[in-house]
């Protein structure tokens, strides 16, 4: 059977999702063996950007015209386009001020007089521009999710990831509930699980790195945190860290 060809690329990002591939130390050789690595500048020279890919794993948010044309390229050239990581799926860390500060002001802050020369728009997830076939969430993504996706692609399908919130795994691991018992600003109830509640397991509240769970009762989480004494400002600041597009009135 012909090996599926694989493209791995990044837009506006920290390269963490691509690094996650390298971090599959036990499986990396197997992956490189079973896929034809067609485009992967971070790991392989002389990428050939013109051809067709079976799967493109693309990380990062879209925030420049260059990002956008790269995204269109990968959409057009690939049978399966995978939004790889929270930035690609929800905008991620770079988009956190999209609602609060205009882009030019942010640019000026950092680049001063050079700002107007930079072509940059508010970082946005892939779904604002193209359709994606599947997504792996997480900042950083879980190795296991990446491996499940690659395994599924080899089998001719896409993985079914669970749709429960962080709390389910958190409780099942018998962590202390930081929200109820420590009165900490934990976003677990409205955040997509699958990380095995990594952060609460070490005693740190969930910062929401995997983005909203499918049926988040956002309004209730907000109410809950407000009654526990957090200010609306602080809550929104925290919630927008990885996903800026919350509907604070959503109840389902």
């Amino acid at each position, binding site marked *: 059977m012909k090996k599926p060809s694989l493209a791995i690329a990044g837009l506006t990002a920290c390269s963490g999702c691509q690094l996650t591939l390298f971090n599959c130390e036990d*499986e990396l050789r*197997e*992956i490189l063996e*079973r896929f034809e690595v067609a485009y992967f500048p971070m790991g392989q020279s002389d990428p050939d950007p013109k051809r067709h890919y079976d799967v493109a794993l693309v990380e990062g948010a879209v925030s420049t015209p260059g990002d956008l044309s790269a995204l269109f390229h990968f959409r057009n050239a690939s049978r399966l386009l995978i939004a790889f990581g929270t930035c690609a799926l929800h905008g991620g860390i770079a988009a956190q001020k999209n609602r609060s500060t205009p882009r030019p002001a942010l640019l000026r802050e950092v680049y001063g007089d050079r700002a107007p020369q930079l072509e940059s728009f508010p970082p946005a997830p892939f779904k604002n521009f193209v359709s994606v076939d599947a997504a792996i969430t997480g900042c950083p993504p879980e190795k296991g999710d990446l*491996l*499940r996706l*690659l*395994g*599924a692609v*080899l*089998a001719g*399908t896409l*993985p*079914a990831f*669970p*749709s*429960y*919130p962080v*709390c*389910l*795994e958190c*409780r*099942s*691991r*018998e*962590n*202390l*509930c930081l*929200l*109820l*018992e420590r009165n900490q600003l934990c976003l*677990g*109830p*409205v955040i997509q699980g699958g990380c095995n509640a990594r952060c609460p397991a070490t*005693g740190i509240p969930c910062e929401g790195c995997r983005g909203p*769970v*499918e*049926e*988040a*009762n956002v309004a*209730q*989480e907000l*109410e*809950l945190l407000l009654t526990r004494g957090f200010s609306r400002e602080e809550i929104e600041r925290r919630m927008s860290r990885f996903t800026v597009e919350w509907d604070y009135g959503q*109840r*389902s």
Partner: protein
Amino acid sequence: MEISAYLANDNLPQFLDTLRAFGTLHGPTLSESGVSLFAPLTSLDRLDLGYRRTQIPPKKYLFPFRDTFLEYRDGRYRFPSGDSKRTVLFGVHACDLEALAYLDQVFLSEPEDPRYAERRANLLLVGISCTPDDYCFCSEPAGSARCDLFLTEQQTGYLVQAESSAGASMLKAAAKLLVSAPPAPPRTPAPCVIPAQDPERAYSRDPLWDEFARSCVGCGACSACCPTCYCFDVRESTGLTGGGSRLREWDNCLFQSHGAVAGGNFRPGRVDRLRYRFLHKYCGFSPLQGRSSCVGCGRCKEVCPVDIDLRELIGKTAPEPGGGR
């Protein structure tokens, strides 16, 4: 066969060490972060006998949160090789024992669940009497016969009673540490549960339903921590080298995905799902229709971040205990 005996407090550590001969000893402990949980008693210092309830009930020993149920290899599905080891679970309260008996009915009835059955056969249960707190809602702390051995706390020790032949063997092995005791009085029946409810109630128009549906954050804690919740989801994944595994994972009936089908959802609103939860908990699903599975452990009340308590839907016009179907 002596089936009941007296164990003095001083002998408890030695008694526990005797139990190790019957399997790896597990019992209630307190985690570093202060969570009560059943865990291996690698050292007896870890034992926390004064515990109220563990976060996750003993069901985790029989039906873990995430379990590889089948493996696919070379064109066939098969059970993964059994990993279950003989375990003595010490210090289980009567409500949790009752819950395990309920799960036994679910998973050991025809067709028996082989993975559950294997683990169950390897699990010995030692019950212990308890002191209820504000979250408990059983009628009164009771003993239980749903175990191999039950310890009832007395002033300076425990009344130890064998409830199975395995329990009797344990007593025998520990004979040196025990003194004979008068036969215990007959057991009161299982600890009080919320009596079985008429399914009609699940469809009542009580405004409380909408209130609950509005405030449930959908965290899933209630079912994870419930000792008799056992809904599970099934997911399959393929490895890189071919072959695959089919997982079972705890599910929660309040998740939208629970009733979703292609093109719709049979329980579209959270209120529909809350009604389902009520039905499953207090009315019982076939073949356990007419049985309430609530054992009164109080976990759901303790863990729900928004204080949802489905029993409030019953309270107002509760029928007499046993008045259900």
